[in-house]
């Protein structure tokens, strides 16, 4: 499901950057994906500012189809679907950044340590990684969230981060392993540089594109998991999210009532953001991995 790019060959850094930029601008997948993500991000940031009422306020007529006044129509109770949508997008980006970010941090910490240290440390970390990897994340999250009386996006992101890092740790470990024995790392080690510094200064920069792509995938994963949780009814108790909108639409029989405007936008928003991120990732892979470039 994920692409596993190889760490690119070492060539002088400025040349690599220039070349990467050249390919980046010409890569249709990267540009298209980025445009979609930026449009939705802008809607999430700017959208709520243009709306004077809250997403859950009962502002209009009930069950109104999309119109000039209410672009995405209204819910069963007269809430503005468009307002819910842009606020929901905010939650989506927030949970992606926080959850995906935390997972990336844990994955990096575990992956770098295991890959660089090797030996017993590696064995132990590997075991832990495998255990968390095998546990079905959503089900663990269900149980944990069910016991929380009050749920917030932050806590949701925290739990998602804690359960979704293992594959990233594995991938980063493998990459670190292959970089560990390179000359420049040996040189740093021989000149007495301490381990954390070697990891931060020598290893991480050499796989920065890889780390970035890993983060994108974790971001997408966090968004999808959060949507599922919200849909089951374990979303944030306050506020809106796209998953919660789907939950409400399903719960109040929007399907049977033919209120397509209630359940189409939230799912489309998630699909568009996550899909665009994935397509962008393929583009990035082609940019950073010379073997995949189309000449």
């Amino acid at each position, binding site marked *: *499901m*994920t*692409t*596993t790019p190889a760490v690119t060959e070492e060539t002088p850094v400025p040349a690599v950057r220039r070349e990467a930029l050249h390919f980046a601008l010409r890569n249709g*997948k990267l540009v298209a994906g980025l445009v979609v993500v930026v449009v939705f991000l802008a809607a999430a940031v700017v959208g709520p500012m243009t709306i004077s009422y809250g997403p859950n306020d009962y502002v209009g007529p009930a069950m109104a189809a999309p119109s000039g006044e209410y672009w995405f129509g209204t819910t069963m109770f007269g809430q503005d679907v468009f307002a819910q949508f842009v606020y929901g997008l905010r939650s989506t980006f927030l949970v992606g950044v926080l959850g995906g970010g935390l997972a990336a941090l844990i994955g990096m910490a575990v992956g770098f340590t295991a890959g660089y240290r090797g030996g017993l440390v590696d064995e132990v970390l590997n*075991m832990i990684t*495998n*255990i968390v*990897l*095998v*546990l*079905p*994340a*959503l*089900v*663990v999250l*269900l*149980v*944990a969230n*069910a*016991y*929380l*009386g009050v749920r917030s996006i932050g806590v949701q992101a925290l739990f998602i981060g804690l359960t979704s890092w293992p*594959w990233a740790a594995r991938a980063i470990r493998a990459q670190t392993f292959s970089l560990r024995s390179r000359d420049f790392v040996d040189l740093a080690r021989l000149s007495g540089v301490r381990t954390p510094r070697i990891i931060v200064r020598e290893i991480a920069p050499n796989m920065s594109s890889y780390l970035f792509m890993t983060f994108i995938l974790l971001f*997408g994963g966090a968004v*999808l*998991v959060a*949507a*599922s949780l919200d*849909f*089951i*009814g*374990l979303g944030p108790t306050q506020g809106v999210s796209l*998953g919660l909108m*789907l939950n409400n*639409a*399903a719960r109040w029989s929007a*399907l*049977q009532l*033919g209120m*397509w405007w209630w*359940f*189409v936008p*939230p*799912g*489309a928003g*998630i*699909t*568009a*953001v*996550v*899909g665009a*991120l*994935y*397509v962008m990732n*393929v583009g990035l892979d082609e940019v950073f991995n010379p*073997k*995949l470039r189309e000449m």
Partner: protein
Amino acid sequence: MRRYFGRKLLVYGLTFFVAVTVNWLIPRFMPGDPVQSMLSRANVSQPAAVEAMRLHYTSMFGFDQPLWRQYLNFWGALLRGDLGISIWLFPTPVTDVIVRAVPYTLGLLVPAILLSWVAGNRFGAFAARRRWLDNSVLPLGYVLTATPYMWLAILLAWALGIVAGIFPVAGAYSFAMRPELSWAFAGSLLQHWFLPFASLFLVAFGGWAIGMRNMIIYELEADYVTYLRSLGAPGRLVRRYAFRNAILPQITGLALQLGVLVAGALVTEIVFSYPGLGHLILQAVQNQDFFLLQGTFLFIVLGVLVANFVVDVAYVLVDPRTRAGMGGAA
């Protein structure tokens, strides 16, 4: 090979241990008093049950005993197959409720996983052969994998169920029927099964197709492919070898995706009110039925572990390197 399976089994054993422990820990260390909230809820809906509940709690958890004792008791009850009593369906034991739901979930999941895996791999390998196909299929595949399972389920239910009226959108069989061995009932089952199956299948299919396409593209850059081509081997042979090698990481991927697929099945069942484990989870959440929720959790974990082991066996059958004791890529 013994070592390979030994390691795997150790991991699975530890995972189960961790899952049970987490299951035991969560209610004790979460804020609030779940027992009280559960009882007070039960008080409203099942006044008669409260005293029985309280007794059951005390005997099962033994709150007056030291923690380690409570923990051992928990394991003891678990090993006897005692997962507590459901509040939602009081006084049915949780184990019974789950056992009744499991066939529905398996009936959706197993065909969806296997068929999407086979079809997705074939299609991905096929798409990698032609540029135009690749360029149109790839974005479509990514959009499919990015689709939340429940949203695709809702769209299918709306389009094919409500608007077109071809398929029913709720339940596992017609409400007018009782389960029996007849063609009419089987037909009804199949009719109700199709949409949830299709939405699971489609999302998973996109993922496998993309995974295969990416793997094949990497394989076609491998040295052994360059060598074969230098010796004039026809594309057919080259592709066969590349497919065979690319399928290995896809098998590993199957194990990695199990959790996501199970999650997909759960939310899909909720959309279609399909009476499997997902439906149980929804009911458990809505009725604050923590016994049922935790029991379902353990059941799913167990199922995923067993499935993982099956995948491991399949991997060994397919990758000669694990058999020859060379480690392989697992």
